[in-house]
């Protein structure tokens, strides 16, 4: 799998992401600067990693979503390309209109830096196929604006089309208000595009992919997407 990680000014999780991708694919991802205007030929997966692109000016992800590389990313999406956005990358994807909704300031106003638990809400996606339905896994989160919001119609559509990938839950797998620390609508932590090939999520599965990091809870996501291209 040829993965390309986009680098914006203020991105700071590209190396963690590269480690996770390399672990699952055995291949070093390409890191591409935001001022490029084309993706490398043969790109299978575009990854928008976490960080604080452009200092979160105006709105988180707003500036990055208008950077020179983004028209090529939109074109890649239109052709059915696979795109993963984590944390700030999720914010950029919503700002770019590649995923619906928006990420608001956390309901409690606090920057949340801690582990959370996520429940796999669908295994029908290139990113979640190696998990069991309703399996719960641990993932670190670190964000100030992770409060997913969309209108009622969009939410009904996401639910009806099985496009909620992950929800915030307790360690026991219950989607409670306490587990939903940033106040996201319906405990939503990650969503899929209509064709299921674009995933955006706030927590960081790439930070738990090796026992040395304290666990491998996030590894199935990278093995799932690597598997799509290993068999292709």
């Amino acid at each position, binding site marked *: 799998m040829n993965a390309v990680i986009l680098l914006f000014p203020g991105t700071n999780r590209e190396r963690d992401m590269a480690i996770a991708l390399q672990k699952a694919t055995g291949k070093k991802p390409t890191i591409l600067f935001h001022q490029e205007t084309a993706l490398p030929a043969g790109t299978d997966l575009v990854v928008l990693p976490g960080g604080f692109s452009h200092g979160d000016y105006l709105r988180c992800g707003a500036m990055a979503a208008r950077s020179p590389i983004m028209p090529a990313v939109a074109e890649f999406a239109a052709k059915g390309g696979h795109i993963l956005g984590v944390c700030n990358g999720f914010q950029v994807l919503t700002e770019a209109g590649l995923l619906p909704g928006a990420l*608001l*300031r956390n309901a*409690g*106003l606090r920057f949340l830096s801690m582990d959370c638990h996520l429940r796999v809400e669908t295994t029908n996606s290139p990113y979640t196929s190696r998990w069991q339905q309703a399996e719960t896994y641990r993932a670190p989160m670190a964000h100030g604006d992770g*409060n997913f919001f969309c209108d009622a119609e969009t939410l009904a559509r996401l639910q009806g089309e099985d496009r909620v990938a992950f929800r915030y839950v307790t360690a026991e797998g219950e989607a409670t208000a306490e587990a939903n620390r940033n*106040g996201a609508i319906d405990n939503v932590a990650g969503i899929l595009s209509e064709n299921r090939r674009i995933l955006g999520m706030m927590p960081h599965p790439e930070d738990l992919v090796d026992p040395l990091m304290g666990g491998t809870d996030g590894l199935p996501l990278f093995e799932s997407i690597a598997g799509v291209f290993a068999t292709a």
Partner: protein
Amino acid sequence: MTAAPNHPNARPEQKMKAIVTVMPKAGVLDPQGKAIEHALGTLGFGGVGEVRTGKIIELELAETDPAAARAAAEAMARKLLANTVIESFRIELA
């Protein structure tokens, strides 16, 4: 004789300013507004209802035609200044 609009001696007030006010839409949670609301209560200010926060963006425009200036500012607001999923905006010219 007055200077032409683009003349170096053109008076600065001939430049048009668009003031774009961006606010969270009704029904969208505004945690900062809530925090300010609580703080005002803590300070003893009574009679304050809901508090909403937004932002004001001032644009200095080369355009001198008010209708064209408004249209340009509106295009900028739709494309970048506001995220219309969660925010509404209004434009005033000055």
